């Protein structure tokens, strides 16, 4: 059931937040954000460093503290729900940091990604993700802490794909990947996943690459949504492009500092 008035007549979004205020301790980093990830769409969130992008994702997943507002999964209230429950509901998450099990082997990382499915299915999925990241084949028995930055990211993305998620929450998944591999991950993995019905919430520094595969884009500045627009529109409008590429975003940030 659509819950907010402006979504009347539309399909219930896979994931939505309404007026979310969230942060750490008593300090609100996310300051009243509303956002929707429609079923089977890719939604990109951009914004300057420290804008609260990661905190927004963490709050949606019950990791950061939600002070007010709601998180809805398929229209169902999951505000502050335990993360393991969200995993069972099909939400996959790649954090920006600490995205692998360091003291586990790469293969074991993948096995943990497929923790919720049976042995046969797990094996099938391991073979599938290894086709996506053939580079990992040779590293399967290496401890994750001995991997390069890019290999770590591959392991992290492969691990989340093991969950076969319905909703994928990615916090800078291509950081430390080569431009070519970033393109492969975004265009050949994330985009097709959404075509198959997976809904994706993507935080990316590589704004142009992210916008190229996104349906909708949000610009987050100092914990607030400054821009919410179709990704294609942002890409084709030089001003918007500029904003998302960061220079003007920094100006917006500077202006709101002045206003205080």
């Amino acid at each position, binding site marked *: 059931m659509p819950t907010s008035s402006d979504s009347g007549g539309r399909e219930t979004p896979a994931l939505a937040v309404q007026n979310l205020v969230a942060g750490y301790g008593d300090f609100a980093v996310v300051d009243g954000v509303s956002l929707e990830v429609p079923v089977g769409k890719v939604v990109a969130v951009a914004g300057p460093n420290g804008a609260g992008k990661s905190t927004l994702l963490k709050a949606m997943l019950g990791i950061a503290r939600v002070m007010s507002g709601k998180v809805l999964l398929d229209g169902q209230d999951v505000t502050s729900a335990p993360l393991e429950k969200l995993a069972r509901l099909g939400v996959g998450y790649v954090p920006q940091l600490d995205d692998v099990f360091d*003291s586990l082997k790469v293969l074991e990382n993948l096995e943990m990604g497929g923790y919720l499915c049976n042995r046969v299915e797990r094996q099938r999925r391991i073979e599938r993700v290894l086709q996506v990241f053939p580079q990992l084949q040779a590293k399967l028995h290496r401890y994750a802490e001995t991997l390069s930055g890019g290999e770590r990211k591959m392991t992290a993305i492969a691990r989340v794909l093991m969950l076969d998620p319905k909703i994928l929450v990615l916090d800078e998944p291509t950081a430390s990947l080569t431009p070519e591999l970033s393109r492969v991950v975004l265009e050949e993995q994330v985009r097709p996943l959404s075509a198959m019905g997976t809904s994706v919430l993507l935080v990316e520094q590589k704004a142009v690459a992210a916008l190229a595969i996104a349906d909708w884009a949000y610009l987050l500045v100092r914990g607030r949504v400054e821009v919410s627009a179709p990704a294609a529109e942002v890409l084709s409008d030089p001003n918007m492009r500029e904003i998302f590429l960061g220079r003007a975003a920094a100006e917006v940030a500077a202006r709101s500092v002045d206003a205080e």
Partner: protein
Amino acid sequence: MHLLIEAIGFGVASGAVLALGAVGFTLQFGISNVLNITYGSLMTLAAFLGAFLLGLGLNVWLVMALGGLLIGVASVALNRGLLSPLIRRGLQPFGLIIVTVSAGIVVQYMIVAVAGPSTVAYGNLSGATLHFLGWTLTTAQVVILVVALVLMVGLHILLTRTQLGRAMRATSSNRTLARSCGIATTRIGDIAWFLSGTFCGMAGIALAITVESFDFTLGSVVLIPIIAAAVLGGVGQPYGAMVGGLVVGIVSQVSAAYWSPSYENVVALAMLIVMLLVRPRGLFGANSSSRKLLA
């Protein structure tokens, strides 16, 4: 030379008990990050429970297994009933250590209240004396050695070959990420506390079998070499704790043989301090900051 070989034999036997204790101690720490000083008193509790069960006429090895299970349950209760609620309310690690120290003292004096302050003895359960490799060990010591070995191999198989064991290591490595994979980390914590308590209880009874007599201070005294063994092996690493237990056992016994038995614990403490000075992450932790529960 003969003295040295004999002392090493004794060291291996006492090291097996320390290793059992250290593995249980480190396993729980690796997963829940709580430095559980109550552990020593739970060992004492196991020894006294053992005396009670032996009094009922049960077989000593059955008593060891039962004691392990009971202390396993007590260990889960300690976490669920006291420590977890405090952590949820935001108690910091230092406060938690004080709580486990206090809980340990309470348990110790509850034992005194029930069983009295006098010494207790299991009686002679040593069995025949065996000679091999130049060692002189009692049958009981050899059985304990074998039991410890079997438990360690069992733990190794659990941690590396089963999905549950991998989930335990994953939880130890990165709890949030483990939860994001659907792992119920609270349940994993319960299992870790249970296994830890089981090792603790079995070590306590094994210790009681091998000493002539003991009183309510049994566990708090042996906790020092156990922590030394755990630190030696790198806290949170069961394999390290196994080796650490053996090393502390052998060094203590050798120094007791050549020097004086009363320095046993002093040697363990000295090893602990030297270890912290030269290799704060343990024997095997040289190039790793995050390696927990096996690597």
